[in-house]
C-alpha cells in the first residue's frame, strides 16, 4: 500500500442536494495516494447518494486499478449497505464485518427495496436485466408503494423504470445502476427511484445538434423533461412521459448531468391544477454521466 489519502466525509449522504458536498471532495479523492474515506460522520445514506458513491468508486477503480477503502462506517449504515448489496459490487475495500445475526433480514426488509443492480450497456444483457428488475419490482410493489393509493401506480412505475433504464444502453455509452427504496427519514415516508450512470451525459448525447435547437446544460435537461425530443430519432418519449407520470403523483425529479442539474417539483395550486416547477442550475461541480432521482412523498 502506498501513501494513504484519508478523507473525512461529512454527513452529506442523506439527501440528494447535500450529496453536492461529497462531489466537492472528488478532486481530493483523485489526487495521489490510496484513497480512504472515513464515514464515521455519516448518519444515513439515501439511495441516490449510495449509487453516487458507487459511481465514484468505480471511476477511481477504472482510473487507478485500485479500490477506495471505506472505514469507520457506523453500524446502522453498514447494515443498510450490506442489505442493499453495496458491498457485493466489489468496488470498495471494506474490512468491517457484521455478525450474521445482526444483519437486516432479507425476507422482511426486502419487500421495500430493489437492491442496487447494474444495468449493462450492451443491449441484449441490458434488456434482460431491466426485465429482471421490473419482475422484482412488480413482486414487491405492494410493499414499496404501500403508502401511495392508486390502482395503477405499479403499472405507471413499470413504465418509468423501463423508460429511464433504456436510456442507459441507448444513450450513455456506459453501464449504470438502479436502486429503489421506500424509507422514512424525519418522520416522512418517501420512495426513491435512482437510475445513474457515468456515461457521456445528456449534453454528450445531443452533441450533434446545434445549441439553438434544444439548448445546452440545464436548459437541455429541462427540454428533455418537457418535450418529446430525442438525440437518436425525430422525437422520443422517455423522459417526457416519465415527467408527466411523476407530476401526476405529485413527485419530484432531480436530474444531474455533468455540470448541470434540474429539479422538477409538482405542486397542486389553489385552483387544484397540478403544475410542474423547474429549478435549473449550471456550472456546478463536474460529475460524469447522468444521475436521476425520482422521489414520491407520502
Amino acid at each position, binding site marked *: 500500500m502506498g501513501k494513504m489519502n484519508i478523507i473525512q466525509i461529512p454527513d452529506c449522504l442523506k439527501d440528494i442536494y447535500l450529496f453536492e458536498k461529497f462531489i466537492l471532495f472528488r478532486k481530493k479523492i483523485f489526487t495521489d495516494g490510496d484513497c480512504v474515506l472515513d464515514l464515521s460522520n455519516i448518519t444515513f445514506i439515501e439511495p441516490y447518494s449510495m449509487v453516487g458513491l458507487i459511481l465514484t468508486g468505480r471511476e477511481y477503480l477504472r482510473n487507478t486499478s485500485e479500490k477506495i477503502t471505506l472505514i469507520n462506517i457506523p453500524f446502522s449504515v453498514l447494515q443498510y449497505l450490506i442489505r442493499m448489496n453495496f458491498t457485493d459490487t466489489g468496488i470498495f475495500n471494506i474490512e468491517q464485518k457484521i455478525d450474521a445475526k445482526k444483519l437486516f433480514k432479507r425476507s422482511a426488509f426486502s419487500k421495500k427495496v430493489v437492491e442496487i443492480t447494474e444495468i449493462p450497456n450492451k443491449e*441484449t444483457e441490458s434488456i434482460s436485466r431491466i426485465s429482471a428488475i421490473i419482475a422484482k419490482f412488480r413482486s414487491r410493489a405492494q410493499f414499496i408503494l404501500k403508502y401511495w393509493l392508486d390502482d*395503477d401506480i405499479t403499472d405507471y412505475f*413499470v*413504465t418509468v423504470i423501463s*423508460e429511464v433504464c*433504456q436510456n442507459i444502453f441507448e444513450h450513455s455509452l456506459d453501464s449504470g445502476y438502479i436502486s429503489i427504496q421506500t424509507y422514512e427519514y424525519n418522520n416522512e415516508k418517501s420512495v426513491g427511484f435512482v437510475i445513474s450512470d457515468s456515461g457521456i451525459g445528456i449534453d454528450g448525447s445531443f452533441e450533434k445538434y446545434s445549441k439553438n435547437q434544444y439548448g445546452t446544460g440545464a436548459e437541455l435537461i429541462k427540454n428533455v423533461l418537457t418535450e418529446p425530443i430525442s438525440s437518436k430519432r*425525430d422525437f422520443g418519449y422517455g423522459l417526457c412521459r416519465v415527467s408527466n407520470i411523476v407530476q401526476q403523483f405529485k413527485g419530484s425529479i432531480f436530474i444531474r448531468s455533468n455540470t448541470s442539474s434540474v429539479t422538477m417539483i409538482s405542486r397542486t395550486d389553489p385552483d387544484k391544477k397540478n403544475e410542474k416547477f423547474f429549478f435549473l442550475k449550471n456550472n456546478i461541480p463536474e460529475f460524469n454521466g447522468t444521475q436521476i432521482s425520482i422521489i414520491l412523498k407520502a
Partner: protein
Amino acid sequence: MVIELVKIKNRMKVDLKDLITRPLGEKFYKEVGKILKNASPNEVILMNFDGIEVADPSFLDEFLVKIIMDSKKTEKTFYVKLSNFSRLTSLNLKSVLDSYSRFKNERIAVATNQLVDNDRYCIGNVDNIEKSILNYLHVNKSGNAKEISDYIGYPLDETEKILKELDTVRLIRADESGQHHYFGI
C-alpha cells in the same frame, strides 16, 4: 385475424408480463409482419393484449406505430383494432400517438373494442363529432352516409368528408362498392 400478443411473447421466451424496450418492439414488428403477409385485403387485424400488463412507449413506437403506418399503405390496406389492453398501455400509446402527430404533422389513431378515457372507441385525437360517428358504428356495426348524417345532425356533404377522413385514418372502413356505406372496425 386475431393476433394474440401474449403468444408471440411466449414464443420469444419473454418471461415478463410487460412488453418493454425498443429492441423487443422491433422483434415484435418483424414477427407480426410475417403474420400480416397472410392477411386479406381490407382485413381487420385484432391485436389482443390479453395477458399483457404494460406496453411501454418505446415498445409501442417500434411495434404498433409501425403497424398502424403500414396499414395505410396503398399496396395492401388493412385495419388495426386493439383489444384487452390495460389503462396504462392506452395512456402510453396516447402519449406516443400525440407526439407522432405533432412532430410528423400527420394524423394517427387506432380503433379499439373497449371504451378508453373520454368515452371513445379509439386512441388518438378525434373530435366530438368523429367520436359520435365511431360510437354509432360501434353499436350499429354499419351505416350509410345519410343515416350517419341524420344521427350527428350534420349536412350530408360535410358528413361524407368526415367519413372519408376517418376511413383514411383507418378508424372506420368504407364499403368497397362505393355505396357510401361504412362499417365499424
